[in-house]
């Protein structure tokens, strides 16, 4: 999973900012494009699952990397 079209650094931000920044970034992208997000808020793991389920943007990957949380979202078409 190293291919992405946009990257969002949401490290250091707390709920609900990672989700709000992700939404804003997705707004400027086109359907099918991939967004990679890095966060440090542990709550963002559940929140990005819920965000994907409710918005139709697909959560391709969610993983913990050295104490950080990385997500890959595919913008819905």
């Amino acid at each position, binding site marked *: 999973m190293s291919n992405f079209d946009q990257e969002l650094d949401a490290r*250091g*931000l*707390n*709920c*609900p*900012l990672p*989700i*709000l920044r*992700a*939404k804003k970034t997705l707004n400027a992208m086109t359907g099918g494009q991939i967004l990679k997000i890095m966060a*440090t*808020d542990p709550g963002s793991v559940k929140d990005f699952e819920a*965000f994907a389920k*409710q*918005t139709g943007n697909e959560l391709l990957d969610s993983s913990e990397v050295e104490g950080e949380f990385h997500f890959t979202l595919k913008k819905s078409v």
Partner: protein
Amino acid sequence: MDSKRLTIIATKGTLDWAYPPFILASTAAALGYQVTMFFTFYGLQLLKKELNLRVSPLGNPGMPMPMGMNSWFPVLGTAIPGMETMMTSMMKNTIKSKGVATIEELRDLCLEADAKLIGCQMTIDLFDMKREDFIDDIDIGGAATYFEHAGEANVNLFI
């Protein structure tokens, strides 16, 4: 697909209680909800151009205090002049250091997402508030205006 709708009645005007309505509203907007917020009584403080929101330890045993003060500091001590200012500034520092958004930031995000913000006409009259003290992007309305939105909504919250 028809988007879901959320309405929130915001009734409280302190820094701590400013968070729940704006966090929920901005998140709902990001999830695709159409959001309406109705601000009444002390909640109208959240619509001021110049926000001067404060938090008080007085009468709030649930508020975490520094140095374990909850257990040894006398309740009456929280009424000492300056306590509110001190706790407000400590709270603001904590908010900043933990990467929590400011109320201004969350309010702007709500407005950007086209949330509808309504100030309560009756409260404005009751407290002799001035329209020009509030941000421009709001409507002024009453209970019937609120129900116009609430009746169509999936989620209605009173905070």
